[in-house]
């Protein structure tokens, strides 16, 4: 600890020097204010002890100068006993203490102790302030970093993620969502995803707002490139610190590939079951050939052998083509689209169904292109024909179901060409379909025709229309009518 002693009186100065040196202080001295200010600049003392009365610049001015330019230096004033008022003024100006002459050693020690305490406190304070600042800086950096990471996580997750409020309004969306749907902030999620004007009755967001639990649903959406995809949506609650639910997060994952796989497996299964019957017949024929050849060999009957071998050859050929068929089907069949005349197409459909309609007295109304019109659709005829035939057959079945109670049975088929799509409508005045079954009719093996239905028809229809990137819509009132609308894009949309 270095002390600058400013004292004009040499005797007093010597006295202080002696006393303070014994207390292990390092002492530098000055005789007046000007000298003192020079030593403060060069000697960097921790404490200045100065007489109030100095030649030239007096002690009070020195104090003021020190407190202004070197606020960390503690100043102790030395004053005569009768001079207390200026000493008290000095305390107000920032001096740590004053001592009176004649000097009492203990008072000097107390004054110095007070000055040192103050210095020590200041060091402690500045240290902890500095620590605090570093801490805050560090925490801020970490916070910013983790915030950045969460935003990145939110953005880069390969799912569509949005956060919605109680009114289903989107308040935040991740990158994948924004890329597909643009800036949809402020719009309703059901509107953005499915073009609806209000949420569905079994909306999972609604459920999560009610019970805070996660719910799932599957939905079919159309991407901006026109592709129809299946999304699996999961919701989860976002709560405030009090546990109140404020927002719901919707995370939608594209599960189209899984759907395609399911459909493919189902179709393969059904294909195999349909051919297994054929195979049984073929094997019986093969046994017949075998029997005849054996019999011919036993009896030396060449003609019998030849007949048997003919049958065997024929069956082997059929089995070969059937196996190739299975192998072919297990691959992904791509559509072979061609421009098909609408009139011809509808005629073929109507002709196929005519016998059954006639049998049940169902009349046909056609709102389709006239003969020789050049209206055409871009379809794989075999695949699309199967779809419309299944729907048509369904219409006939619906009519037959109410045959005994309805006077006039009628099926109307119409084709409407729009800018971007072609609409095929098949409407019957049969038994109708309750709303809750309108989605189910497309699922595999669903049938409301008892053992008469296979539950395959509309499943296949749905599949082939989807392959054409089209949609099937149902309108129906139970007991009155059912209308199937098949909409397929007019121009080929190739991915």
């Amino acid at each position, binding site marked *: 600890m270095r002390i600058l002693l400013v004292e004009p009186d040499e005797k007093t100065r010597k006295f202080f020097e002696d006393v303070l040196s014994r207390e292990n202080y390092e002492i530098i001295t000055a005789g007046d204010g000007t000298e003192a200010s020079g030593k403060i600049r060069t000697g960097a003392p921790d404490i200045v002890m100065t007489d109030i009365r100095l030649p030239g610049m007096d002690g009070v001015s020195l104090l003021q100068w020190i407190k202004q330019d070197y606020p960390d230096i503690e100043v102790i004033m030395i004053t005569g006993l009768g001079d207390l008022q200026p000493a008290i003024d000095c305390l107000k100006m920032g001096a740590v203490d004053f001592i009176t002459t004649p000097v009492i050693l203990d008072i000097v020690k107390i004054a110095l102790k007070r000055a040192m305490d103050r210095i020590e406190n200041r060091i402690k304070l500045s240290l902890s302030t500095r620590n605090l600042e570093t801490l805050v800086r560090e925490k801020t950096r970490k916070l910013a970093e983790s915030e950045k990471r969460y935003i990145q996580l939110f953005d880069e997750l390969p799912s569509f993620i949005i956060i919605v409020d109680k009114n289903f309004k989107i308040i935040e969306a991740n990158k994948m969502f924004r890329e597909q749907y643009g800036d949809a902030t402020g719009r309703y999620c059901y509107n953005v995803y499915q073009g609806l004007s209000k949420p569905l009755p079994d909306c999972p967001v609604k459920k999560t707002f009610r019970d805070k639990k996660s719910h799932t649903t599957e939905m079919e959406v159309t991407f901006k490139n026109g592709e129809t995809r299946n999304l699996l949506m999961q919701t989860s609650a976002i709560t405030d610190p009090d546990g109140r639910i404020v927002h719901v997060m919707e995370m939608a994952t594209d599960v189209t590939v899984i759907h395609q796989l399911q459909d493919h497996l189902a179709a393969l299964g059904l294909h195999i079951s349909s051919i297994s019957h054929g195979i*049984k*017949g073929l*094997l*019986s*024929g093969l*046994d*017949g050939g075998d029997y005849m050849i054996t*019999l011919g060999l036993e009896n030396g009957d060449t003609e019998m052998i030849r*007949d048997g071998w003919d*049958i065997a050859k024929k069956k082997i050929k059929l089995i070969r083509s059937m196996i190739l068929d299975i192998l072919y089907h297990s691959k992904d069949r791509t559509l072979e689209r061609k421009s098909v005349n609408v009139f011809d197409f509808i005629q073929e459909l109507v002709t196929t169904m005519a016998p059954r309609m006639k049998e049940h007295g169902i009349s046909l109304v056609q709102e389709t292109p006239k003969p020789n019109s050049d209206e055409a659709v871009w379809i794989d005829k075999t695949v699309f024909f199967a779809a419309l035939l299944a729907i048509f057959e369904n219409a006939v079945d619906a009519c037959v179901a109410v045959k005994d109670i309805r006077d006039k049975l009628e099926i109307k088929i119409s084709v409407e060409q729009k800018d971007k799509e072609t609409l095929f409508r098949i409407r019957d005045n049969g038994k109708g379909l309750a709303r809750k079954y309108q989605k189910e009719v497309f699922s595999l093996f669903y049938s409301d025709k008892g053992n008469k239905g296979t539950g395959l028809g509309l499943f296949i229809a749905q599949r082939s229309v989807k392959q054409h990137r089209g949609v099937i819509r149902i309108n129906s009132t139970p007991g009155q009518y059912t209308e199937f609308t098949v909409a397929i894009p007019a121009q080929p949309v190739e991915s």
Partner: protein
Amino acid sequence: MTQKIMIVDDDPDVTKFLDIMFRHNGYETCIAPDGKAAVEVFLKEKPDLITLDLEMPEEWGPRFFRKISKAKGFNTPVIVISGVSGREFSIPKAKAFFAKPFDADEVLRKAREILSE
């Protein structure tokens, strides 16, 4: 007197197989390719035994059976030979059921057993 077996099946190769097998074993045969024709053949030929396929064009086996079994005094035994699953329930009164592909010796043995009753 030679006994007569009527074969009802839409697959000509299967009928040929059964035809040769039965004739080779000393029976007379007559053939019908579907349920509708089978009624006429049945009335004309008066067979002692019928082998019947279930799934055929025009008229299915069960329907044919219902038609002919309605006639008074009908007691012609029937053996069902079919690839359709659930064949056991199609014609409850049938004497025997065989799945396709069938074992020729088994069918013959069964036919012999029924005809000797």
